[in-house]
Every structure is written in C-alpha cells, then in structure tokens.
C-alpha cells in the first residue's frame, strides 16, 4: 500500500529505515499466552465505562463533594449571617451620640480656651450670661444626648445657622450641660426633654 506523499531523498531514506524497524519489531512481538482470557475475565471487564473517565472519576467525586460542602457552608452562612450592625460607639443607655461642631474652621484643631464652646446650665437663659456655664467642649468631641429642648434661646452660629434646640448632654469626662443645636450637626432623632428636666 502507498505509504503517503513523496518526500525528499533524506526523508525517503528515513522513512524506509523507520518502516523496516517498525516491521521488524512488529514481527517479533508475540502475544502473551492467555492474554485474551485475562482481559475478558479480569475484574472490571464488566462492560462499564472505563478509560479516561475511570481515571478522572476520583477527581470528579472529590470536586463534587467539595462543591457540595461549599454550597452548604454558604447556605449556613447566609442563614446565620449578622444583620446590619449599628456602629455607633457605646454610651449610657437611652442616649444618642452627637459630635461637637465648631463653625470656625481655625478652631477645629486648637484646644484653647478661645476655641472652647460653652455648655450652658440653662437653655432658656442668655447663652453668654455670667454664671450660665456648666462646662466646656471642643470641636470633634463626642457627647451623649439624653433629650432635647426645642424652645431654648435662639442662637445663630458663624455660618448663619440658627436654632432654638438645645441638647441635654453628658461629656466623656462626666461634665453635663446644655449644648446649643447650632454647635452640632446632629441627624438623629432625640426625644424631647420633659418639663422637669429643664
């Protein structure tokens, strides 16, 4: 039979030598006695899919198990995952944190007496009145608001914001007083102070 396309002289020589070697080996490799019986009777010769799939089956099983475990773990996590977390700092119960806000930008980093903001003793008295000083706070401090008086003295800050709201606050160092609403930028709901608390 034709052995394929024609090649150059060197290829023809190589092909002829290759054919001779292969045919010599082919003539001389004998079939072992009982090979057919062994093939037909060996365990596993039960007409089951074999070969590459049989070799890959353990990997496929391991992969399927890993996928199932991952799916179960994901499902469990989905069921028991924590809900939205309120990250506000811990404080006295029933209080809302507010941060002191100084409208004067130059005073936001300076903790001097000139940059201090007053906590008043009474929200209905003039803010700067002599004796209406309960304590001092500075820009950025976190205070705890217990309630708000919405009918306090009207105040306007340096940015033009006005408010009659005053917060009943307690500082981290234990100082308590009333913080004018214009000295913070609160966005949380705060309960109204009862009349006795004013």
């Amino acid at each position, binding site marked *: *039979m*034709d*052995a*394929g*396309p024609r*090649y150059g002289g*060197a*290829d023809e*020589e*190589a*092909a002829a*030598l*290759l*054919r*001779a*070697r*292969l*045919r*010599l*080996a*082919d*003539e*001389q*490799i004998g*079939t*072992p006695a009982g*090979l*057919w019986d*062994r*093939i*037909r*009777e*060996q365990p*596993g*010769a*039960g*007409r*089951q*899919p*074999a*070969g*590459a799939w*049989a*070799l890959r089956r353990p990997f496929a099983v391991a992969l399927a198990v890993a996928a199932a475990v991952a799916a179960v773990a994901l499902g469990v996590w989905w069921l028991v995952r924590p809900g939205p977390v309120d990250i506000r700092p811990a404080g006295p119960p029933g209080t809302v944190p507010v941060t002191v806000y100084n409208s004067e930008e130059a005073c936001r980093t300076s903790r001097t007496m000139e940059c201090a903001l007053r906590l008043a003793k009474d929200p209905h008295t003039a803010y700067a009145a002599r004796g209406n000083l309960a304590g001092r706070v500075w820009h950025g401090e976190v205070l705890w608001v217990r309630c708000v008086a919405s009918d306090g003295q009207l105040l306007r800050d340096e940015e033009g914001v006005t408010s009659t709201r005053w917060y009943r606050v307690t500082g981290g160092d234990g100082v308590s007083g009333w913080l004018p609403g214009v000295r913070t930028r609160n966005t949380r709901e705060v309960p109204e102070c009862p009349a006795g608390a004013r």
Partner: protein
Amino acid sequence: MADVTPPASMSAASSVSPTFDEVFCGLLPRLYRRAVMLAGSRQSAEDVVHEAYLKLAARPQRFLAHPEPYAYAFTAVLSVARDAYRKDRRQVLVDEVAGVEGAEDAGVGGGGYGGWDGGVARRHAELEAVRLLGRLSHRQAGIVILVDLDGYTIDQAAKIMKVHRGTAARHRARALDRLRAYLVESEHGQAGR
C-alpha cells in the same frame, strides 16, 4: 427459562453480543503489538489493551458498526496509552538495557540473526521501536504507525485520527525530521549515545 441463559462466553456481558468479543479477540494480537510500541513495556501494554477493551465495550455498537474496527480500536489504544502516560509521567520510557547494546555490537541485533540468541535480538527490535516512538508525540506516533507500519495513506490516517490531511502530513514530516539523524546514525552502527 433454560433457553434464555446466555452462553458461557458472555459471562460478564450479558447485554453485549458475543460478536464484539470475537472481533476484538481477532484484533487483539495486532493491537497488543501496537500497545507495546506505544506504552513502552509489555506489562503496560496489557493494561492498555485491557483499558481499550473496556472503553470499546462501553459502546460496542460503535465498534462493530465502524467500517474498519481495527482503526477504531487503534485510536482507543492510542488514547489509553496517552492517558496512562499523562497519569504517570514519572514512568520513563525504556532507554538502554544492559546487554542489548552489546548484542547489537556482536551482530545479532538489527535485521540479521545468526541463530538463537536467547531472545536478545527479539527484545532489541522491540526496544528499538519503543525508543523510536518514544521520541515522538502520541499523535506523531499514531500517524507513523498507521502510515509506516499499517500501510495506510496519509489521507486514510488523517481520517482515522480525525485530523486534517495537512495536519497528519505535518505530524509525519516532523516525526521523520526528529528521527532522521538517529535512524541514519544507528543504521551505520553509530547509535551509541
């Protein structure tokens, strides 16, 4: 009920016609010889033909309906040999065997025999074929076996291997390129490395 009992030859395969076994059994010596050349050892070759048998037996109708069952079975043998090689790359193809090179020098190897030599020349021819094919990729080896040993044309080999004719021709040309120096040198008695 006795008349529906399958014959003894179908002991493990009641759902498969005995014709499958008959056809495979008829091809077995030839397939085994190809497996020896591809797998590199007789033990591996037995495993390869066994795996190929199982593979073909999974779809016996395809094998039986194929216009050329040998070609179909050969591709199964080639595929199993390739999978086995990939599975255990640590296996090293037979290279040199002590005593065989000496036998070649003594003139009992290659094509001539001066008498019974204890099977050395027989093993030499086998190992030489293994060594040659071991230098090729499995596809190249498959094309070379089909063309240079089984006598198929490039077109037929390409069809059997399910590749384009040009691809098959290129595989064979590269195989010859790879083997040329070795073949010529060894032919002139300079194969020692």
